[in-house]
């Protein structure tokens, strides 16, 4: 004999009780989900950022080397000394060039992955882009040092192809080699591009993925050449992804202090300057002021990008 059907099913324990609570008070669930990350973000993350800002308004006593905890803009003024401006401009130029190169190299790869890769090819794409991220950053940088070294595989290849003499002459050029690629600005540039490339490809691919194929067909249908369709449809629609990727490549290059140390000249970058100022020099205020520079640059960059309509398609 079946029980007469009831309108309410029996409660099955804690799970059902919690479900009922969350159903009655949806904000409870929201609060439970948000409080831990907000605490982390608010206290640990923004808190340390604030501490950093605070430090940058202190100064160091030039004789004793003791930090004076008084509000002053003296430390910021120090940033404008010729040698420090040099560091900032060098870092800025490198970041801009690395970002540009990453964008140019990433676009065809991201475009292929978004437009044509299906099934297995899509897996190959993701694996190919992500695989380098699985190995240690330091291992990759040292591997590049070996590749770029004067006795490395590039020189070896040039010699075996019979262009060893031209290669040697190129390396003698100060900007290109200065005796070896592993100690030149070009070498630093190459390694930066290699290391940050995945961070450009992935957001770009995600942006291109969202551009329906019919959009391109519509452009062609209305008479646009490939170049016109690229400029007027693909590029504007992919721009949020390109900007997202460039935020990664740009800010990561702005702050990196290891690559220029291992592969490059002795010329300093912002990251390296911060590292040395807070370590050996013990000048925490100036290190903090230097660390504020990339933040300001990124804010300016995002403002300009927004003004130019980079986020209109979002």
């Amino acid at each position, binding site marked *: 004999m079946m029980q007469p059907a009831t309108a309410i099913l029996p409660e099955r324990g804690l799970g059902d009780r919690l479900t009922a609570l969350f159903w009655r008070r949806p904000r409870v669930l929201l609060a439970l989900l948000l409080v831990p990350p907000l605490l982390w973000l608010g206290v640990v993350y923004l808190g340390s950022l604030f501490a950093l800002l605070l430090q940058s308004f202190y100064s160091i006593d030039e004789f004793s080397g003791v930090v004076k905890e008084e509000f002053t803009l003296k430390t910021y003024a120090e940033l404008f000394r010729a040698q420090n401006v040099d560091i900032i401009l060098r870092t800025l130029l490198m970041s801009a060039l690395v970002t540009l190169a990453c964008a140019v190299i990433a676009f065809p790869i991201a475009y292929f992955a978004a437009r044509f890769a299906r099934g297995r090819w899509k897996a190959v794409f993701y694996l190919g882009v992500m695989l380098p991220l699985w190995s240690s950053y330091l291992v990759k940088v040292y591997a590049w040092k070996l590749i770029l070294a004067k006795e490395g595989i590039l020189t070896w290849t040039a010699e075996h192809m019979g262009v060893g003499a031209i290669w040697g002459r190129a390396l003698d050029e100060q900007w290109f080699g200065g005796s070896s690629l592993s100690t030149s600005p070009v070498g630093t540039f190459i390694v930066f591009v290699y290391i940050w490339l995945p961070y450009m490809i992935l957001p770009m691919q995600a942006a291109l993925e969202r551009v329906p194929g019919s959009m391109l*067909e519509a452009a062609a249908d*209305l008479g*646009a050449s490939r170049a016109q369709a690229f400029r007027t449809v693909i590029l504007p629609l992919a721009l949020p992804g390109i900007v997202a990727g460039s935020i990664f490549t740009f800010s990561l290059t702005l702050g990196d202090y290891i690559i220029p140390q291992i592969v490059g000249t002795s010329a300093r970058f912002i990251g390296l300057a911060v590292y040395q100022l807070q370590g050996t020099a013990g000048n925490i205020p100036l290190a903090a002021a230097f660390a504020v520079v990339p933040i300001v640059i990124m804010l300016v960059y995002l403002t300009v990008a927004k003004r130019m309509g980079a986020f209109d398609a979002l």
Partner: protein
Amino acid sequence: MTSPATPAVEFRAVTRHFGSVRAVDGVDLTIAEGAFFAMLGPSGSGKTTCLRLISGFEKPTSGQIRIFGQDVSDVPPNRRNVNTVFQDYALFPHMSVRDNVAYGLMVKGVDRKTRLDRAEEMLSLVKLPGYGDRKPGQLSGGQRQRVALARALVNEPRVLLLDEPLGALDLKLREAMQDELKALQKRLGITFVFVTHDQHEALSMADSLAVFSDGKIAQIGTPEEVYARPQSRFVADFVGSSNVLPPDLTRALGGPARWSSLRPEQVRIADQGQGRGIVTSIRYLGAGSRVALRIGEAEVAALVPAGQTVPEQGAEVAIAFDPAALHVMEG
């Protein structure tokens, strides 16, 4: 120059294979200039591929396509004087409605003033004057459809292709747009080719149509011809909710021993008639009732107009029809 006899679009033994799938399989087709031509068929029947072959988004595996007598085999889409209204409208989301409509003129290098004026004209044509400043995202489905239409017409194409143009609209809007499209085509006098899986839409709008099945054309003709004289079981089945009668039933009802079709609206319920059957289901349609009868192994539907007596389910009744209404098919 093209003489009046030159068809707008011509397919000669056109085939398009995707791997082992024959999406379009040996299609011969002639679309007259100024026609409102419908390509009708179930999904996967090759009708959309045929449209994409005309616009140039697909290349034929073999065969030849001519537009106004010119072979377009080697002509990319941007140089074909045909324009498309896409199924998803494919409006550019980052541009205003005005810039969307003016896009075709912009890529041609028409100066800004002229092209914006033209865009405004086109927006008036599709009854959206003053909507130029909005973004496509701010428009309703029906409005987007009109923008897509205006954008496709701004280039003054000789052939306008419409890919399931009304598919995403609700019934009422769809019917209004059907009338409007028809009127627009008359007014502009250009050839419209539209793809649909909706038989009512094809019958009511087109002045000639092709019924597609498995990459081939099952029948081509005027709506009246296709509706009243289907050449095959498939066409009879797909184009109308027609009765398809097997050979033995056709003979029992007074015809030859062949497959035939019989329109429900031509079947009357009577006391005496060509055959008798049991009422199995009754569907009320508003303007009448569709009564399904079982006769032997087959099912025959009759349309009883509103106001006439509808038999009860399970009752045994006779059906009567004009013998000329029994249409014998080839296959």
